[in-house]
């Protein structure tokens, strides 16, 4: 008996090893007997591939429209800041990038945990697909931060707690990607990357706390985000629209990347449409 959700050649799961022996057989048979509910149906790469294909254009269009609206509002309509002049306008790229880079790491942790517990292949692919986008956003955040810092603080880089922890987050992304790239066996690469992501998720609060402690001891409050207590409505609206646009971009890119990863893994499967004209 084969089932589309169960990888019958998979190794024994970490989760199953932790269970007592008497529970193992039950868990397996229950999973096999479960009807394909909506949540689980799309855990199958075969079902998810066309769904992702249908969603990508929608998110891409939404990304273009929302980013254009947000950036237009932010760059053209929003008033000039009283203390920072026009330099603050990079906030419309900086804050969405920072937001996505942090949430993308948590999302990677979520998919990694799901993959390690249930051994759903798609979860690992989602985690893999999120990493480059998260790293890109962390880099964008650092870069725009440097561009923002030069006119406002007078320095491209200061060892502020926020900057330093974002740099470390960027390095954590690079570490996960490097580990996945170094392992040839896809299954081992998936699991190793997932475990490293989870170790990182546990560590991120500790790192953030320690860096903040370090910063307060060394620099005090000499450098901080001096923001006006209230933010003008067009600014806030532009920021929210730009953030929504960046989110749509991230989702579109991640879904497209997952499709490529599925195509790579399931190469030769009968249900997969031929990707190149030379394919039979």
């Amino acid at each position, binding site marked *: 008996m084969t089932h589309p959700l169960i990888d019958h050649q998979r190794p024994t799961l*970490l989760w199953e090893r932790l269970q007592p022996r008497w529970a193992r057989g039950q868990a397996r048979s229950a999973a096999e007997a479960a009807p394909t509910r909506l949540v689980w149906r799309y855990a199958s790469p075969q079902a998810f591939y066309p769904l992702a294909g249908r969603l990508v254009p929608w998110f891409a269009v939404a990304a273009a429209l929302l980013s254009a609206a947000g950036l237009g509002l932010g760059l053209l309509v929003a008033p000039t800041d009283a203390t920072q002049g026009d330099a603050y306008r990079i906030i419309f790229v900086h804050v969405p990038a920072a937001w996505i880079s942090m949430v993308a790491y948590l999302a990677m942790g979520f998919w990694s945990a799901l993959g390690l517990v249930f051994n759903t292949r798609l979860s690992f692919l989602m985690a893999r697909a999120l990493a480059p986008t998260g790293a890109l956003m962390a880099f964008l955040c650092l870069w725009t931060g440097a561009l923002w810092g030069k006119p406002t603080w007078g320095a491209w880089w200061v060892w502020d707690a926020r900057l330093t922890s974002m740099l470390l987050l960027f390095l954590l992304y690079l*570490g996960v990607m490097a580990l996945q790239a*170094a392992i040839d066996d896809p299954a081992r690469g998936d699991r190793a990357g997932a*475990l490293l992501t989870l170790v990182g998720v*546990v560590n991120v609060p500790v790192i953030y706390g320690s860096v903040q402690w370090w910063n307060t001891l060394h620099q005090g409050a000499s450098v901080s985000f001096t923001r006006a207590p209230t933010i003008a409505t067009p600014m806030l609206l532009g920021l929210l629209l730009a953030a929504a646009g960046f989110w749509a971009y991230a989702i579109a890119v991640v879904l497209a990347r997952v499709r490529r990863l599925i195509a790579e893994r399931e190469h030769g499967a009968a249900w997969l449409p031929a990707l190149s004209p030379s394919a039979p």
Partner: protein
Amino acid sequence: MNGLAVTVDPGLRRDDAQLKAVTPAQAGVHPHHERDDAPAGQPLATLAALVHRDLLLAWRRRADALGTLVFFVLVTALFPLAVGPEPAQLRAIAPGVLWVAALLSATLALPRLFAQERADGTLEHLLLAREPLPWLLLGKALAHWLTTGLPLVLLSPVLALQFDLPADATAVLAASLLLGTPTLSLVGSVGAALTLGLRNGAVLLALLVLPLQVPVLVFGAGAVLAEAGGLGARAHLLMLGGLLCFATVLAPWAAAAALRISTE
């Protein structure tokens, strides 16, 4: 080498086909494990045997552990050459330099943690042993610390003299290294297990592990700076102790999961 007793108990073990392939008879063929002098069901005896074995191996290959130590001394000696010999400046940078050098030395020694076990097949016996794998890996991390971390702690007062650190700051430095270096070994064991047998594994290992070690570095070097600045090192040392407890509980577990991923 012959102190470790690994007992294969097929009735209780996991049901991986490849692991099941190693029968007790096959395991017994291995000359290193013929003696079974650790009483069954005594986790502490097993841990002691494992640590004893690793220390014995380290003693027979003294050059490996000594190399790490010499690297530590060498790196710290490079800094005065690069930044100049003014005592005031050296005193200011000493905590950071000594801690970064300790972190790099500990990282440099990490690839050795499982490499030999993997090469001679001992690793599979550890995976099959009756005791829980995280417990055994705690022993591996302990042995690793005893051979690489503890010598750094003992050597640090001498190097602190070179940097003209005052006596109380030197004591705090040694205390912070004593509390911090075990965490480096524990967290490092996760990275060593993940990168086991990979191409370019040593560089990758450093890339993975160093960002995770930042808290230890911050509180370790911070303790010495706080003591020198008159704030007192108590809070930093308590945080280092907390990190050590945190790592002792979680790191062997994560390393065990990583080792199973790397060997399946």
